[in-house]
C-alpha cells in the first residue's frame, strides 16, 4: 500500500467523524448547547492554547501522571518479571494481583484521600496504582511465556540461573512488558484526569473539565476533551514508536 494512500485511509476515520459531528450540529437536530459545532469547539480550543490558560493545567496533569506512572513501572516491571519467572511465586500471587487489578481504581480514590490528603499525593497514588498492577501482570505473563527452549540453550552453554534471567527471560518478556506499560500509560492518564475532577487544586485538566461542566460551558468542555484526547493519543503514539524500536525483533 502506497504511503499516500495509507495516510489518506488513516485520516478518513477521523474525517468521517468530524463530518458527522458537523452535519449533526448544523442540521439543527442537536441542541447546540449539548453539541456545540466543531468549528466553535476548535476555535475555543485554539483560544485556550494560544492564551496559555490551559498550559499549566496540562503540565500539572502530566506531572501527576508521570510520577505515578514512572514509579508504577519502576516497581511493577521487576516484580512482574520475578513473579513470572518462578512457577511458585506466580501461582501464589496471581489471584491476588488479578483481583487488585480488577478493582476499579477510581473506587480506591476515597481511600487514597484519607491516606494521602487532597494534594498531589493522592492523584499520583492513583496513577501509580492503575499502572503497577497492569505492568506486573503483563511483565509476569511475558516472563512466564519466555521460551523454555532459549532458556535451556543458555543453560546448555553454561549460564547460571541469574544469567538466564537477565540475558534471556528479561528479553523474552520485553515485548509483553512494553505492551503492559503502554496500556498502563493510557490508564494512568485517565485515572489522573478523573481524580482531578473529584478533588481539584489550582491546576489540572480534570479540574478544568469539571469547572467547564459546573459553569455550563459545554464548548469549553468539548474543547478540553479534545485536548485531553489528543494528549493521550500523542503519548500512545510516541510510546508505540519507541516500542517498535526497542523490541525490534517482535513480530519478526
Amino acid at each position, binding site marked *: 500500500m502506497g504511503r499516500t494512500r495509507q495516510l489518506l485511509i488513516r485520516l478518513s476515520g477521523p474525517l468521517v467523524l468530524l463530518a458527522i459531528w458537523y452535519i449533526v450540529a448544523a442540521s439543527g437536530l442537536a441542541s447546540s448547547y449539548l453539541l456545540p459545532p466543531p468549528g466553535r469547539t476548535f476555535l475555543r480550543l485554539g483560544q485556550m492554547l494560544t492564551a496559555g490558560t490551559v498550559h499549566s493545567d496540562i503540565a500539572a496533569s502530566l506531572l501527576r501522571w508521570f510520577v505515578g506512572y514512572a514509579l508504577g513501572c519502576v516497581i511493577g516491571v521487576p516484580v512482574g518479571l520475578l513473579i513470572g519467572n518462578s512457577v511458585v511465586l506466580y501461582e501464589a500471587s496471581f489471584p491476588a494481583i488479578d483481583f487488585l487489578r480488577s478493582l476499579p481504581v477510581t473506587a480506591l480514590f476515597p481511600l487514597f484521600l484519607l491516606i494521602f490528603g487532597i494534594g498531589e499525593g493522592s492523584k499520583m497514588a492513583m496513577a501509580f496504582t492503575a499502572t503497577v498492577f497492569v505492568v506486573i501482570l503483563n511483565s509476569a505473563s511475558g516472563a512466564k511465556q519466555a521460551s523454555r527452549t*532459549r532458556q*535451556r540453550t543458555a543453560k546448555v*552453554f553454561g549460564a547460571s540461573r541469574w*544469567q538466564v534471567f537477565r540475558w534471556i527471560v528479561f*528479553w523474552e518478556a*520485553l515485548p509483553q512488558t512494553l505492551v503492559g506499560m503502554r496500556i498502563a500509560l493510557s490508564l494512568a492518564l485517565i485515572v489522573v484526569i478523573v481524580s482531578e475532577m473529584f478533588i481539584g487544586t489550582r491546576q489540572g485538566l480534570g479540574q478544568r473539565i469539571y469547572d467547564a461542566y459546573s459553569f455550563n460551558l459545554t464548548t469549553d468542555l468539548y474543547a478540553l476533551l479534545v485536548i485531553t484526547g489528543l494528549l493521550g493519543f500523542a503519548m500512545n503514539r510516541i510510546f508505540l514508536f519507541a516500542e517498535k524500536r526497542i523490541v525490534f525483533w517482535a513480530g*519478526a
Partner: protein
Amino acid sequence: MEHSVSPAPGTGNRRAVQILVESVARAFGSQQVIGDLNLEIRQGEFLTFFGPNGCGKTTLLNIIAGIETADSGRISVPTGARAKIGYIFQDYRGNLMPWLTVAENIAFPLRVRGIPTHERMRRVRELRDRYEFDVDLNARTYNLSGGQAQLASTLRALIIDPDVLIMDEPFSALDYQTSLDLYGKILRVWQQAHVTVLLVSHNIDEALYLGERTVFLSRRPSHVAAVLENTLPGPKELGQLGSERFAALKAEALEIFRRETSQNPSNHS
C-alpha cells in the same frame, strides 16, 4: 596423530575411547524410553545415530552432554579430562536470540564465561574466518536463511573449542540443497577442529553418509541394536550418495531398521 577424513576400515578401532556409555537407562513417567544402553564413543570420530520415533535419541545425546541425567548406568570419560561439549539444535529459530546480532549469538558461550566484549568479537571473527563461513556477523538472526542460521549455530558451538560436537537433527528443517551444502561444511569443520561429532538424524542417507559409524537404536526401551560402519573408500564426497556401494550400505541399514521396527517385540533384551 594424523587425522584423515575417512580412515581406512578397521583403523577406527585403534582410536582411544573418549566417552563410555554404560548401562544407561531413562524413563519418563511410566514410559521406559532408554533401557540398558551401552556404547563406546571414540576420540575424534564422526558418529551418527538413527532409530525409530521416540527411541530417545535426543535424550541419549542430552545425557551424554550432561544436560539430562540417566536413571541408572553412567557416562564415564576414560581419558580423565571432562569433555567440552558444543551443541547444535534442530530448531535454529528457537535457539538463537533474535535480539542479538549473529556475532553476539555466536559469542554467547564466551559471554557466559565472562570474556570481555572486545575479545569476544575478535574470537568470533577469527572463528568465522577459520572455517570460511559466509555469514553476516552484523545481521539479525531472524533475517537469516535456515542454512545460514545453522552455520551461525555451528560457530556458536565451536567457539568454546569443544572436544565433542553434538548435533541433534541439525539439517531436518532445511531444504535438500542447503543440506547437501552443509554436509560438506560440517565435514570440513570435523576435519579442521579435530572434534568428535555425534549427530542424530532421521534421514538414513545423511546418517550413513556423514558417519564413520552409524548407531542404530531399537524401539523403546531402546538399546544399541547395531552399529554399521561406513566402508566406502576415499574421502567423502556427495557423489558417493549415488554409488552402488552406498546403496548396498543403505540396504543393510534398512534391513536393520525394518528388523527393529517389526511387530515382534521379543527381539529386545
